[in-house]
């Protein structure tokens, strides 16, 4: 996209895939967080040739801002189609920001069982953490202003792109 100050999402995904390749094995279970994280996890799952089927999480029921913002519309169904007990889980999200989404995702995962280990892969780390959470695999670190946010988009052909937007307080919005 002309004038897009952000790096190309496809090449970030390629380098993220390379970083993860040596770290996955037969007990690795990939879990994508809706919506962007699921797109990425689908691509990573195919590229890494993982054996366990892909898991998806919608963390709406575990968010810490429910009492302020209420329930988001269009809640998706979480689906973990493998046994979490003893599994080597990698959570996949598009943009790592405050860490609150990841906190919620970990809490939800533990309601499915006791994983052996949980790691985190994010396409973009924009800093601004509010919890002691760090990613194990990152596509790129990008610094942007507090009022802005980075969104992952997917076009009809399945190509991924990053978009810089002004943050707005809506129920559709994720919490980073």
């Amino acid at each position, binding site marked *: 996209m002309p004038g897009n100050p952000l790096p190309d999402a496809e090449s970030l995904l390629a380098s993220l895939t390379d970083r993860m390749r040596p770290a996955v094995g037969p007990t690795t279970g990939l879990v994508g967080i809706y919506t962007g994280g699921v797109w990425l996890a689908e691509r990573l799952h195919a590229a890494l040739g993982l054996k366990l089927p892909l898991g998806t999480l919608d963390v709406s*029921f*575990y968010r810490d801002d429910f009492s302020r913002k209420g329930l988001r519309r*269009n809640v998706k169904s979480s689906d973990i189609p493998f046994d979490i007990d003893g599994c080597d889980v990698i959570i996949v999200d598009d943009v790592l920001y405050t860490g609150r989404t990841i906190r919620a995702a970990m809490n939800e995962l*533990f*309601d*499915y*069982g006791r994983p052996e280990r949980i790691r985190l892969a994010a396409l973009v780390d924009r800093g601004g953490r509010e919890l002691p959470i760090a990613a194990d695999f990152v596509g790129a670190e990008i610094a942007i202003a507090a009022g802005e946010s980075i969104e992952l988009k997917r076009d009809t052909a399945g190509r991924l792109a990053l978009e810089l937007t002004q943050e707005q307080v809506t129920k559709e919005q994720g919490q980073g």
Partner: protein
Amino acid sequence: MWLDPANPQLNKNGELHHLLSLEGLPAGVLRQILDTAESFVGVTQREVKKVPLLRGKAVFNLFFEASTRTRTTFEIAAKRLSADVINLAINVSSQSKGETVLDTVANLSAMQADMFIVRHAASGAPYLIAKHVAPDIHVVNAGDGRHSHPTQGLLDMYTIRHYKGDFTKLRVAIVGDILHSRVARSQIHALTTLGCPEIRVIGPKTLLPADVDRLGVQVYGDMREGLKDVDVVMMLRLQNERMNGALLPSAQEFYKYYGLTEDKLALAKPDAIVLHPGPMNRGVEIDSSVADGKQSVILPQVTFGIAIRMAVMSILAGN
């Protein structure tokens, strides 16, 4: 008043604040509830069947009329949302000491209630309560008189959507005691809002309300006629305890003409589904072979009912 005066269930942003009736609820709100319930169905199949959404909230089951089944489903739903649940069977406590409904509610509000689930024999009682509670308290109608039973109507819609998909292609029959049924009214409103093109009501004249055709439905006195080629058969319970005076000659006679038997069901489409809100009167409105048969979705209705109540409570608590 910050609630919409034309529809006191909605706040000024058009979001659900109380659930009192399915009448007047926009299709968007109905779909939001059904979609959210779908996510909760997944939760109830996990090892830990609980999410922390309503942690620290107090849900009061206020049952002025006995109903073990409905109270239990609300209780399970609230507990699976991590709420604290307090069950009150009012007909045997303060009401017998002469305390009014509003006094009871005021007292419970002073105990920091967040939500009231109300069942009452008088139509409109949940509206009265909703009008008088503090703005941060939510009220759910769990059945009021002959008027409305919105969560039952919603779980029926969820069940139909689960098995049949698109409402706009369906022919639905509602059979039995329409006159005394709050379920039938909720079903008719929801089906109409969701775009169901053909709703039939089937029953004896004495059990049909005088204004039934005003609801936009087709009326059939003959069950065999009415069941022809329908996709969905929604049976109602014969409300023995609500029947004053001789509206029916006998339960046996009712079964003969309006009981759902295998040979009557054969007139519907071969893949038609059969719903019943429970508890069933076997051999009165439904034959056991149908109730336990392949086309019956009566037990899945119960399972979906918990997810629907979780969806309603979590949407209300967040608005």
